[in-house]
């Protein structure tokens, strides 16, 4: 019982991080119908920027942990957002209107470019970071096993929830969000109503990258190790989460992220760590066979 509870806590924490990244995939897909394969690497850049910011702040003598984390969060999100904006501007916008595969190839190129850039700039070795949030609570003991809930996990889940609530509010209640949803449904029509669709698409990338940066910081804090390649597998998982939840649906992305996180953790705990990715992707295949548009995705209905 305690063991299962522990897995639940771990799975939810991991799932939250996947969910944050998955939102970025799903938003970009929703608005321009392309899979931004470089998004996982944007997450990696966010993690590196967080590490640099934390180290820098430590060197400056800002050691109050909540303050340092808040500054890091804002800095990393802002700079990563700039990366997202630049990426859209140089690699995707010039290809808009060309054949469908072109931006996809460009995204793969962007992904490799970002990985190598970080590898050259930061070195290929893994970067460790000492845990800066410590302490935990015992939840439940049965037999020899005690389930723990660490302060770190609480912080990750709370921050993620807060960011998601803010983000949902922006999308549903502000003119920015309305413009995004309008572009998503009919980009040409949105343009005819006077919405600058190019600016709206840029904004989508900016918001997606900022969310990925938050995920990057959380990942860094949780695992304490990052390298230049970390964005690849996490990116693929988050993409899977977005597809599982129904690509194009934002609540679906979070739900998909939680599902993938839980599946992975429970499979590792009860069966085999080596096959955890097989489990996650098998579930994806099964869900898609029975629900081709994902858990919360809406099927495309063409009106004739």
């Amino acid at each position, binding site marked *: 019982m305690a063991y299962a509870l522990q897995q639940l806590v771990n799975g939810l924490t991991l799932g939250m991080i996947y969910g944050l990244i998955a939102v970025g995939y799903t938003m970009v897909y929703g608005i321009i119908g392309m899979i931004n394969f470089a998004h996982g690497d944007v997450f990696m850049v966010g993690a590196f920027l967080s590490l640099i910011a934390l180290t820098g702040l430590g060197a400056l003598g800002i050691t109050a942990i909540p303050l340092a984390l808040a500054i890091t969060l804002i800095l990393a999100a802002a700079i990563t957002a700039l990366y997202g904006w630049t990426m859209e501007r140089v690699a995707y916008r010039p290809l808009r209107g060309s054949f469908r595969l072109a931006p996809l190839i460009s995204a793969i190129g962007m992904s490799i470019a970002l990985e190598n850039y970080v590898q050259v700039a930061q070195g290929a070795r893994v970067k460790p970071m000492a845990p800066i949030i410590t302490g935990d609570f015992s939840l439940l003991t049965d037999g020899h096993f005690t389930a723990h809930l660490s302060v770190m996990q609480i912080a990750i889940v709370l921050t993620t929830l807060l960011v998601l609530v803010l983000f949902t509010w*922006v999308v549903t209640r*502000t*003119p*920015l969000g*309305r*413009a995004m*949803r*309008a572009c998503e*449904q*009919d980009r*040409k*029509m*949105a*343009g*005819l*109503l*006077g*919405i*600058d*669709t190019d*600016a709206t698409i840029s*904004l989508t990338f900016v918001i997606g990258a900022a969310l990925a940066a938050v995920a990057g910081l959380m990942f860094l804090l949780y695992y304490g190790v990052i390298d230049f390649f970390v964005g690849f597998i996490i990116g693929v998982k988050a993409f899977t989460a977005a597809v599982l939840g129904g690509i194009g649906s934002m609540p679906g992305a979070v739900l998909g992220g939680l599902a993938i996180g839980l599946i992975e953790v429970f499979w590792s705990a009860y069966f085999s760590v080596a096959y955890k990715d097989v489990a996650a992707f098998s579930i994806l295949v099964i869900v898609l066979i029975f629900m081709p548009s994902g858990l919360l995705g809406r099927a495309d209905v063409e009106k004739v």
Partner: protein
Amino acid sequence: MASPLLQVSGLTMRFGGLVAIDALDFEARSGEITAVIGPNGAGKTTVFNCITGFYKPTEGQLTLSPPGGRVLSLERMAGHRIAHYARVARTFQNIRLFAGMTVLENLLVAQHNALMPSVARGLLAVFGLGGYRGLERKAIAQAKFWLDAVELTERADDPAGSLPYGAQRRLEIARAMCTNPVMLCLDEPAAGLNPRESDELATLMRRIRDGGPGQPSCSVLLIEHDMGVVMSISDHIVVLDHGRKISDGTPAEVKADPAVIKAYLGEGDEDETPGGDAPVEDVA
């Protein structure tokens, strides 16, 4: 006679070897309903697409002279700039509402530029600053005004896609009006409407043309196949056939024009169409 609002001169649109519009000249005057009619394939929608920036015309000028003395060349502007700065709005033959958004949201999207004058202001708006609340109140008031005008107030919070067909058509017009246009281009607004709905539509179009309290007058450019609607509400009719203008005048003049009768009854072929090139001036 009212002043010309939109002047189309020498408009030509070629798609490869196909000439969809051939040296078309006409004008739409402010405060009037101008109808563009013609048999299928005459190039009516192509004219609309050129005016609203969907297509870049191969040749020719589209000059808009809105009140205030500015003169704008629409053929050089991008689509969203035409909607924003030139204030030309349009609807489509096939309805293009944002089906997943509510009726009210559809009308608020149309006021995006009023609500978000710049990205910086938009960011302030996210936090409810920068006078955003006042702007939003005004936008909602404008949306409510048009909801009343098209009798959809009760359905304001329903998804636009769930409305019946006639209501969706009305909502599309209301949405276009929320951009606060000086010219409204309607592409077959009466298609698929029953006679009662067509009558209501005609009343709405007259109301848009005449303006009223809280609403400035807006000129209407109309493509329509329903001749009953066209003849009863138009101030001025332009008849196209095979991309050329074959007649231009008041409803009575056009109805009596032998070239129009010929085009509609299908006599002869395009080579014999008389009076194709010379623009006919008239008094309206």
